[in-house]
């Protein structure tokens, strides 16, 4: 029903575009100069069709459910039901009307469901009638109004401006929404667990929180030494550090090779091949780390008399580094290539060799972009989840031995939120607190990255 209506409105939009343009041509053919190109007249009419339709649809979406609910429940008023009970009745009515109700069907509810259905269909058809009549009226009004000297270009441009603004607003609002979805749970968490214990505690053992029977009253003292985030922060940065130790040298060197040394033919094939690495799903890297690299390192270590955990930080970090290589190599290739040829010429003309030119001229000039790409890689490493969940182990050991297993923020969030969890429990809320810290850390990193890039850019351009 809605789909048909929508299609109809779209068709109406096209028709009004057509009529607007046609009218413009008619005006033009009577030797009058138009204030805008004919298609602007068309767009103008189409907008007069789109805006009322959008407004009515939104109003309907906001008010229809409330009004229908009020009408359905009006039968039950003055019978002494509580609000909660009324809500339950309404939910039952709705699921019965969808044919999904499984409980005992009472005649009352059956009657309500019928009423509900008939109200919905009335609402739908009245919506169609109202929308169509208003649209036609508004388009007709606009059609009559446009003449040789009416302004159509400016409203159309303003409309486009507004549409584009809304699109960019969506991204910003999403970010704000994410922060808000984290912040309340985080605050609740810190009401039970002191911030100090979270930031400086060295024992992370959330499984302990399972022990609590949910009927018991919440006793903060039983959580002491449970949510100390130091080991998992340390683990996160440690694994990210290992990853960057792999990714930065290899990525940078391959970026420099691609940009400066590779012939155009090699570059043509090598660059897409490297970028394929970036397209591999991280879960596949996780397999690779957990089933190939981890056991291999364990065997290698054992043969050398070392004690290596099968889920070592080295395996997870190393594979994560490989995952990040294409980001760094591809981005640094781009920034190096965009260093102006005139700088290379200037250096070569002084008798500098290729490596001297790269080291002394091109690399410093490309540095802001390279730093940016590295920090982007660090953000990826800190936020990476799948590889660490699969390959780095879940016990939060506080260790700096790359051969032992550690855990990261992201892996702990997964561990905490998997399965049935009671909301309002500190254990669940801990995941939100971790998510919030992760968000803050990556935010700071991005701010630093932007600052660095900006500072060097001022210096180098």
């Amino acid at each position, binding site marked *: 029903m809605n789909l048909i209506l929508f299609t109809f409105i779209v068709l109406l939009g096209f028709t009004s575009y057509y009529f607007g343009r046609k009218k413009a041509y008619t005006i033009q053919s009577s030797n009058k100069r138009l204030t805008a190109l004919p298609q602007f007249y068309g767009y103008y009419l189409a907008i007069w069709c789109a805006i009322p339709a959008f407004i009515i649809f939104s109003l309907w979406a906001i008010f229809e459910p409330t009004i229908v609910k009020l009408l359905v429940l009006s039968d039950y008023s003055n019978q002494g039901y509580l609000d909660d009970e009324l809500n339950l009745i309404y939910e039952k009515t709705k699921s019965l009307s969808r044919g999904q109700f499984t409980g005992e069907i009472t005649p009352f509810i059956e009657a309500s469901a019928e009423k509900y259905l008939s109200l919905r269909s009335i609402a739908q058809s009245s919506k169609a009638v109202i929308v169509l009549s208003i649209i036609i009226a508004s388009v007709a009004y606009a059609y009559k109004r446009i003449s040789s000297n009416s302004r159509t270009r400016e409203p159309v441009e303003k409309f486009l401006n507004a549409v584009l603004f809304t699109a960019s607003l969506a991204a910003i609002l999403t970010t704000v929404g994410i922060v808000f979805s984290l912040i309340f749970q985080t605050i609740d968490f810190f009401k039970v667990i002191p911030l100090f214990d979270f930031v400086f505690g060295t024992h992370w053992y959330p499984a302990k929180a399972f022990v609590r029977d949910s009927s018991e009253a919440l006793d903060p003292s039983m959580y002491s030494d449970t949510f100390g985030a130091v080991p998992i922060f340390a683990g996160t940065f440690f694994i990210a550090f290992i990853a960057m130790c792999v990714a930065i040298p290899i990525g940078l060197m391959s970026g420099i090779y691609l940009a400066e040394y590779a012939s155009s033919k090699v570059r043509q094939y090598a660059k897409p091949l490297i970028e394929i690495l970036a397209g591999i799903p991280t879960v596949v890297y996780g397999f690779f780390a957990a089933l190939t690299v981890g056991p291999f390192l364990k065997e290698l270590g054992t043969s050398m008399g070392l004690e290596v955990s099968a889920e070592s930080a080295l395996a997870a970090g190393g594979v994560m580094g490989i995952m990040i290589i294409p980001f760094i190599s591809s981005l640094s290739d781009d920034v190096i290539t965009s260093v102006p040829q005139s700088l290379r010429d*200037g250096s070569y*003309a002084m*008798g500098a060799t290729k490596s001297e030119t790269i080291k002394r001229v091109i690399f*410093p000039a490309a540095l802001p972009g390279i730093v940016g790409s590295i920090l982007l890689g660090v953000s990826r490493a800190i936020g990476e989840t799948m590889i660490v969940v699969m390959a780095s182990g879940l016990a939060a050991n506080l260790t700096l031995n790359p051969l032992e297993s550690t855990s990261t923020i992201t892996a702990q969030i997964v561990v905490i939120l998997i399965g049935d969890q009671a909301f309002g429990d500190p254990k669940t809320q801990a995941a939100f607190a971790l998510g919030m810290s992760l968000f803050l850390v990556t935010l700071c990193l991005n701010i630093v990255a932007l600052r660095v890039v900006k500072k060097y850019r001022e210096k*180098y351009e």
Partner: protein
Amino acid sequence: MIKIKAKNVDVFYGKKQALYNIGLDIEENQVTALIGPSGCGKSTFLRCLNRMNDVIDICRVKGEILINDFNINDKSCDVVRLREKIGMVFQKPNPFPKTLYENVSYGPTIHGMAQSKQEMDEIVETSLKKAALWEEVKDRLHEPGTGLSGGQQQRLCIARAISVRPEVILMDEPCSALDPIATAQIEELIDELKKEHTIIIVTHSMAQAARVSQNTGFFHLGHLIEHGSTDKIFKNPDNTKTQDYITGRFG
């Protein structure tokens, strides 16, 4: 004294021939101007003289170019040494994104010309003085070279080029991005520099060629149409094409 002797030089970009059988002698401690309409090959020829065409993948150079009687197109030629001897100044000022000091000390550093900081300071100072830039920048040697005005940047590039005491300086339309005052300063500088260096300048401005050069070569469609003393080329050319170009009938 002949410094550079080009014999039968052909240049190809891929399959397209850009220069045909160029033969040109360039005299020591004089300014030689190369003129001609756009795309005539004068810049290409200039870039042959310090093998800058090597940088372009598809470019091939044939023929002999003798500098001090040594063929630079020979396999035994060391490009690094060659470019130390033959400096170059480009059309658009291209200072490195480094400080003024580092810009000038770049060449001496990579060629190991200074043993101490003091020696390097001296080289930087003399180069900047020769480039007539010292007085303007001596108090801000450690600021970025890119912060200078266009004319100052170009003089910085000249200082960078002469810092390694080259025998020859190639200039590829060095004033085309500059205003008249900066142009006049550079021209004055060229006159000064020819005492110690051999200068070859590519220019679009015939007035500039007439002002600064002693010898002139006229290129057209990849051919060297005529060359000789600037006086003769401008007052009494042998070739009618030269005559037409000089008097502004085409180009």
